[in-house]
């Protein structure tokens, strides 16, 4: 008999991802599914998927799941959590979904301290609609709607989501992580787990921003994309905890 050391987490369906080569959505999906299994909350978990590349999340996560309108996942999650306070509710949202069209919903869900876990995938570009400028597109970055590079005078400045949410009272846990290499993937999983634990212990709203690669819309190979992420995205969006639950803060 061999000991099974690696298996598909039961919170993931046994279907191939549709994501492009080198896209890191698949890794993040898997990390979330692993954490759901490790925390033994699969049966009571309800997910809310966004509009964007993760729109098919309902095909991949095996838990009960909603398909929300663009940007509205935090409001949908609020309705679910208020109706069923003992369930575990998470949203999975991209940068356009969360930081542009859905900024109102996410800020107020945080301010209310909704006990939900939000996974915010920041790859600095709109993927599904064809590589347009996102609220998190870097200055100078070329996209299909900033063909001459993002110009601060014309397009304004990128939104630093974690920095912003670190000053919202209802937010209990805010962290930025990345999935560009194995060491950071491990850290990302820890942050995801923490976001669920914060919800499970009723501490409030948790948001994990995950820097993610989009080789297709960046016009890079998968390997080049991971390097570009490490060199450029992390430089603008530093990694780390931006807010940790109060009890822990006391012990530090």
């Amino acid at each position, binding site marked *: 008999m061999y000991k099974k050391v690696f298996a598909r987490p039961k919170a993931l369906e046994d279907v191939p991802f549709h994501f492009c080569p080198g896209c890191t959505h698949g890794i993040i999906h898997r990390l979330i599914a692993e954490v759901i299994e490790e925390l033994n909350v699969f049966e009571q978990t309800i997910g809310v998927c966004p509009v964007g590349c993760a*729109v098919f999340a309902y095909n991949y996560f095996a838990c*009960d799941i909603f398909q929300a309108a663009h940007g*509205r996942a935090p409001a949908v999650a609020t309705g679910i959590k208020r109706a069923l306070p003992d369930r575990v509710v998470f949203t999975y949202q991209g940068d356009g979904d969360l930081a542009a069209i859905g900024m109102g919903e996410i800020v107020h869900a945080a301010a209310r301290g909704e006990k939900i876990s939000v996974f915010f995938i920041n790859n600095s570009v709109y993927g599904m609609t064809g590589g347009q400028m996102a609220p998190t597109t870097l200055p100078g970055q070329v996209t299909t709607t900033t063909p001459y590079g993002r110009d601060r005078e014309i397009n304004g400045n990128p939104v630093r989501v974690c920095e912003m949410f670190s000053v919202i009272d209802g937010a209990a846990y805010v962290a930025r992580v990345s999935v560009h290499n194995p060491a950071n993937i491990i850290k990302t999983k820890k942050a995801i787990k923490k976001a669920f634990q914060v919800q499970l212990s009723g501490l409030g709203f948790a948001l994990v921003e995950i820097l993610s690669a989009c080789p297709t819309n960046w016009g890079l190979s998968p390997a080049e994309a991971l390097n570009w992420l490490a060199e450029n995205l992390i430089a603008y969006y530093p990694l780390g905890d931006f807010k940790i639950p109060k009890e822990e803060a006391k012990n530090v």
Partner: protein
Amino acid sequence: MAKVLMKGNEAFGEGAIRAGCRFYFGYPITPQSELAHFLAKRMPEVGGTFLQAESELASINMVFGAAGAGARVMTSSSGPGISLMQEGISFIACAELPCVIVNIMRGGPGLGNIAPVQSDYFQATRGGGHGDYRLIVLAPSSVQEIIDLVWEAFVLAEKYLNPILMLGDGLLGQMMEPVELDEEKEFFIPLRPWAASGRMGGPKRIINTLYIVPEEAEKHNFKLNQKYKEIEVKEQRWENYQTKDAQLVLVAFGTAARVCKGVVDYCREQGLPVGLIRPITLWPFPDKAFDYILSLGTVRYFLSVEMSTGQMIEDIRLAVDGRRPVHFYGRFGGMLPVLTDVVKEVKKLLLKEEP
């Protein structure tokens, strides 16, 4: 039970509580805010949830979440807020979730004013948002009827798994009338095997609004359409008032119908054979009421009386289908039709052929 004096807006709230609704999400807007004030007090008393959202975009999506999780849920707003909700309403209709939405109409377009109008008729009866869908639209015309129809609204929502829109106007929301509250009826919340409430050992449920493959989307649209057709056959509601021998039949709903009842009484006292059809469901529009009256043979004219520039008249024309002329009288922008003016229109039509 003794009668109590109640505001229309409060009656929507009390009716919802009595119907077992325990979740309300909304955003302030005149002239429906008393509904929110009322439920903010009342929901905690019955162990329910009242939550003030940051916008109507959020409130309708909270409704979407709660309904999909299996809750009996309601929201309310007025014109501009209902416009903001349309995206969410389309999603709820697509996902086939039950909920009740109240629109206490205000003057428009734009910011308009807070006076009573009926100019959201098109938006209400044509679905309102993007895509091929319909809402069942209920139009009460008294405070007592509000209480009765809210109960009905939740029953219909859960029977057909469809959002229900209750359409009132600022006057109906603000006015007080006596209502008779029965002993509280026992409400029943049926099992919701479709609700995405956490698998808890069961199969996976998806509250789905995405049909990326056109063949599947067509199938889903077909299914929705079958449901709407069934509703059109089974759920038309209206009130006939003095229509039996009427040569001129007024058609009006809500507040305009109240004015028209006065018109009918006044005309009858003068010996003028006038009646009224009051649609209670605006969608499905009560076509059957017209077929019935036309079968009696006495009616010569229909006169649509609306607090808009003429919206319901299109449905009346479709129902009458050219069999009789359909005329229009309207006041708009927040002005009410006045009894004497409607009587003038009636006389113009009925007496013009007389020597």
